């Protein structure tokens, strides 16, 4: 993996690629051009806001950014998996909201049992994810449409069961307190959860045969099918994973705000997660992308959002910035594909 072998059968006039390249170049190649530009943008954003307000780069603020970015980060990581498969999940925010409500209400009605509350939320998330996958695979509904319907429907369910209000109060419970304010080795528990999820998903995608098959399905589903890959199983699993992690995000939302929130805090997470994945280099057609790029994009978005807030810029502008970034990310991606600008994009 680390050294390039010489050409298998060098044609006399074939472009003589360097068989070996130096350490720095290898490092650059490993990071990738997309990630390098993300790092560049991150450095620029940090430098700008740090210059405007030195507290921006203080440890405390960085922790605030990390905590704020955790929930959208979790969703961005699983969105990455779904997008690599060639799908899309725009119902993650609503799923998180429903899970948040579920965790708090089950917690309360089960006599303050945090594990039952969290377990119920995760189970509901996994179930909804599977249902999304089933609608797409067996109902033959386009992923965007299926999860757009889910975006509306799951939000409605969350509002119905909660009567549209915040439910329960969980911060009397040590487990929820640990999730929201606990620290392990100086880092907030929430951030650890993001790190664990990201590492696990990264390992899954990069080092296992499961990951290979995921990239194969998104890259060319016919070829993947003919190679004997069980597409339905993978797609259902990807959506179930998405639902489960969205539910985890919902639980964290409950822990942070102290109660189950049907809408507040989870609305717009789908946009953030898709923006991060696209900005991080996921091809929206599937088959390309990775957790590393997505996390860099999450950091960039988090820093940007925090910086704008610190500078007292109207939060409406942040919506504008989000939308603009998403479009810009996809435009850059498509320009790299060198697709001809004729008609609807493929």
């Amino acid at each position, binding site marked *: 993996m680390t050294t390039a072998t010489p050409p298998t059968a060098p044609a006399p006039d074939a472009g003589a690629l360097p068989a070996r390249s130096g350490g720095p170049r290898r490092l650059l190649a490993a990071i990738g051009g997309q990630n390098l530009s993300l790092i560049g943008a991150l450095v620029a954003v940090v430098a700008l806001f740090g210059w405007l307000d030195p507290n921006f780069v203080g440890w405390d603020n960085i922790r605030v950014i990390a905590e704020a970015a955790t929930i959208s980060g979790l969703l961005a990581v699983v969105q990455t998996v779904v997008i690599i498969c060639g799908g899309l999940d725009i119902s993650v925010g609503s799923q998180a909201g429903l899970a948040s409500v579920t965790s708090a209400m089950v917690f309360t009605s089960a006599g303050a049992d945090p594990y039952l509350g969290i377990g119920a939320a995760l189970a509901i998330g996994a179930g909804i994810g599977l249902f999304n996958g089933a609608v797409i695979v067996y109902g033959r509904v386009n992923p965007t449409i299926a999860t757009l319907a889910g975006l509306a429907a799951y939000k409605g369910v969350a509002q119905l069961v909660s009567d549209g209000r915040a439910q329960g109060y969980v911060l009397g419970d040590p487990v929820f307190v640990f999730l929201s304010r606990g620290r392990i080795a100086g880092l907030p528990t929430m951030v650890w959860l993001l790190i664990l999820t990201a590492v696990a998903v990264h390992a899954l995608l990069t080092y296992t045969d499961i990951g290979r098959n995921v990239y194969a399905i998104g890259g060319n589903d016919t070829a993947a099918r003919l*190679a004997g890959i069980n597409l339905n199983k993978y797609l259902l699993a990807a959506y179930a994973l998405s639902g489960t992690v969205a539910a985890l995000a919902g639980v964290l939302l409950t822990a942070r705000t102290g109660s189950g929130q049907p809408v507040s805090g989870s609305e717009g997470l789908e946009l953030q997660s898709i923006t991060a994945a696209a900005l991080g280099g996921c091809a929206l057609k599937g088959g390309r992308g990775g957790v590393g790029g997505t996390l860099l994009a999450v950091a960039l978005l988090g820093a940007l959002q925090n910086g704008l807030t610190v500078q007292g810029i109207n939060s409406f502008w942040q919506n504008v910035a989000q939308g603009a970034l998403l479009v810009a990310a996809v435009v850059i991606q498509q320009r790299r594909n060198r697709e001809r600008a004729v008609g609807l994009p493929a």
Partner: protein
Amino acid sequence: MTTPVPPPVPPPNRSPGLSAEGVSKRFGAVRALEGVTLDFPPGRVTALMGENGAGKSTLLRILTGDHRPTEGRVLLDGETVDLHSPQDARRAGIRIIPQEPEIIPHVPVAENVYAGALPRTRLRLLDRAGLRRRITADLARLGFAKVLDPDLLGSELTPAQRQLVEIMRALTGSVPPRAIAFDEPTSSLSEHEVEALFALIGRLRDAGVAVVYVSHRMKEVFRLADRIAVLRDGRVAGVVEAAATDEAELVRLMVGRDLSSLFVRQQVATERVVLDVRGLTTDDVAGVSLRVRAGEVVALAGLIGAGRSELALALAGDAPVRSGTVALNGEVLRLRNPRDAVAAGIGLAPEERKAQALFLQRSIRDNTSLVSLHRLRRWRFVRRRQERALAQEYADRLRVRAPSVEADVRTLSGGNQQKVVLARWLARKPDLLILDEPTRGVDVGAKAEIYRIIADLAREGTAVLVISSELPEVLGLADRIVVMQNGRTTGELSRDQATEEAVLALAMAEDLAAAADPTTTGACADAATASATDATPDADADAAQTGETR
């Protein structure tokens, strides 16, 4: 060719017509063209020949503004033309008739022809009367009035009519054509239509247009071309006057070596039956029975639409089996999906390798290991070193030409891409390997290597089922030939019995029977005619090959 050609008067210094000057084109590490300098003079037909992958299409795309050259320039009558798009080329008077016509399905012929420049009234409405006048005039002028009804919808057109629409697009418009490139225009035309096309090309030539004619068919090239330019490996291998050359010289120029030892003939088939298909019926094939023994190469011959690829997909588990059985090594298989087939030991290298087999954005390593990951993993983690070694082993064995096994498959030529598909299955060591058109779009050098790979596989005891529409290939490769038509097998020929005529007769057996039988009901006759029409392109191709080899 008999019509007198108005003598073109070439200015002494600048070569008139369309020219490429020092044109090079690179796609990543692949050098598609290298310093190509070629003139296409006005009033002459210049054939452009070369193996697949020699750079013909790239050159055409550069000449017609679809690609920008990495180096060099395009000249028209001695003036550099800077082409940024096909529209630029069109405005400059350079046209191309693409191999695959682009037709808008739900729109009539007339609107297809003038799409983008429809006549309109002062109120900006479509000027139907004007459109009608124009299409009638143009059809008459080009001699297509009898073969192309302007009211037909795009979706109703035959392949030949679709081609005519493209030709009309090229020959109409405000700027008269100065150079026209035809990219294998006869591949979907019947003989009668080919004649009409040739007459048209003759008229264009006489009108002083520079004609570029890309074709593989020697007969056509010798009939039509004044000069022949041959590309090999992205360079100009030679430009010859058609009158002063022959087929042998062209082949030498194209291939750069002798062709006689292309096929490895050997007889290694054993008695052990690997594949035993009995009465297999799916939505597309009916009652197919067929056996392939270990070490045997069986070819499936037939016209396009005969159901051969459908049979291959059914054997690979990708089509629901309605009745009949498929047994592998004596064990009847339950083929519900391709997974079952792969697990049982059946591999398929499908017809459309880019669409059905390859992951173009992934490396050779990834593409090779895909169906062998189960033996490369520990827990679920892929052992990278073993994976790389496997990919390297098969890349070496199949002589895949690439900078390394980490190169993306999209950067490879067609032949090398096909070898990667083969490497995937060879690494899996299937008992039965089905190869659907394994040499389509592959240059002669790679063809020979693929034939060698097939022979090696047979020697190792693999049962090989090859689908090919090239009769010489079928005859050269197979121990036995099974011929199909309309989803059924119509006969079987041993190597000794097989001739091109015998194969073709079986490939059209049902039509011949229908024609010979006067009691056939009208409906059946219609069906036979329809299928014969459907199969025209392939029949034509085969006929052309038969003609060439005679």
